[in-house]
């Protein structure tokens, strides 16, 4: 008896049944590993009242790839959990700021390591843990701390999510994933934390067995749906990260300049 295939034909199909009110973790750090195509599909799909778990919401640079800020601007977001909820430069502006100020979006600010560990805890059946991070700061105000070995630690709870959107380099059809370089970042943790993990994959799907079991970064157990990213302009391929300037074409890729939505 054959298992149902995890390979979906389109991003629209892969995100079609995401309901209003879902919690979604978005992988990526800077450009590597960001599920641009899945975000773009979700913008079209239109689910509302979402809780978005992400390192940052984006939108400070003028030339934008699809980002969480666009979901916010599209009135799809009720809450953001992130390690950046406001710009750190006084001169920067991000879309989220106005929505938080107007009470349309709740923003929960979480230190990056705590965010990663809360996701990992959810994926590992650990409901809560203690961390030294943020002790003595505004983020710990009124919260439970405890001393172990003479040092004070803050109690943090797991952060389970309904859905993870991630981007991988290679995958076999069973759902084993390889990430390339810093594309890995939060992605394996979000796949662990999620009830359903949807992956956009850069290279053509491999047969099961083509990835050495020792090399697998995210095991098939954690992966539910996968879509091959089409060539540009249909598919979104990040180039060099723009440093407050438009993205330049990436000469290492055969595909033409990525679509900027």
């Amino acid at each position: 008896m054959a298992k149902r295939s995890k390979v979906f034909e389109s991003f629209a199909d892969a995100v079609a049944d995401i309901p209003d009110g879902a919690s979604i973790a978005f992988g990526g750090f800077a450009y590597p590993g960001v599920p641009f195509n899945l975000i773009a599909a979700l913008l079209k799909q239109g689910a509302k009242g979402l809780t978005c778990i992400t390192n940052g919401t984006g939108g400070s640079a003028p030339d934008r790839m699809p980002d969480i800020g666009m979901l916010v601007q599209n009135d799809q977001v009720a809450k953001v959990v992130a390690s950046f909820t406001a710009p750190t430069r006084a001169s920067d502006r991000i879309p989220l700021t106005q929505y938080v100020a107007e009470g349309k979006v709740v923003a929960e600010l979480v230190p990056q390591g705590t965010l990663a560990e809360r996701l990992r805890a959810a994926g590992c059946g650990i409901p809560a843990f203690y961390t030294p991070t943020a002790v003595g700061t505004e983020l710990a105000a009124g919260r439970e701390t405890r001393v172990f070995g003479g040092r004070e630690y803050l109690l943090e709870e797991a952060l389970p999510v309904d859905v993870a959107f991630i981007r991988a380099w290679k995958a076999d059809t069973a759902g084993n994933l390889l990430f390339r370089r810093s594309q890995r970042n939060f992605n394996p943790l979000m796949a662990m934390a999620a009830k359903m993990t949807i992956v956009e994959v850069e290279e053509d799907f491999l047969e099961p067995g083509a990835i050495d079991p020792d090399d697998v970064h995210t095991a098939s157990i954690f992966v539910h749906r996968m879509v091959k990213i089409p060539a540009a302009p249909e598919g979104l391929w990040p180039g060099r990260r723009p440093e407050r300037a438009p993205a330049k074409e990436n000469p290492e890729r055969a595909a033409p300049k990525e679509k900027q939505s």
Partner: protein
Amino acid sequence: MSGLERQQIADRVAQEFQDGWIVNLGVGMPTMCSNTPIDADILYHAENGVIGYGPVLPAGQEDVHLVNAGGQNVSLNPGAAIVHHADSFGIIRSGRIDVTVLGIYEVACNGDFANWKVAGANGGGIGGAMDLAACAKQVFVILEHTTRDGSPRLLRECALPVTARGVVSLVATNLGLFKPLGDRFLLREIAPGVTVDQVRAATGAPVEVPADLKVIKIL
């Protein structure tokens, strides 16, 4: 009175690095520390799981799959390794980072510092700074000595919400190199062309000046 250029401040900090150290550099001025030629074998760690990165690659030679914590397209040195975010912060939280160098808004002589929330903001940008500040063996901070309107950023107490308390062991500014001593800053070295009176006038906390005050050597 402006003292050191940004790269010169970073250069002075980098000279504190010792052979075999594992170093994490924050976004902005701290990343410039890796440009400084020093006689020490340093392993650079980035929050996004890159262990052992090398110089930023020039446009056209980037690996689009590889950035450091500042989003710069870096290279990898031989012996590099990639881990995921939880393992990367496990390295940080377990005290394996010998020093983190962070760009900040304010530092107090009690070792507190602030770098995640500007006055009046709703929310902020913490990134990996709180984990690094709480857990690295040493925290070095880099900042312009005063704000654009001339207000001191080396203070008795932080006015902005702190990132961590009592953790800073070295402060590098355009005016000099300082060590927080609880109720005052020790001026370890002064920038060329800057006077002690100028440092004191620009600092919001007492400054102790050693009899044999050294001048920062420009590389």
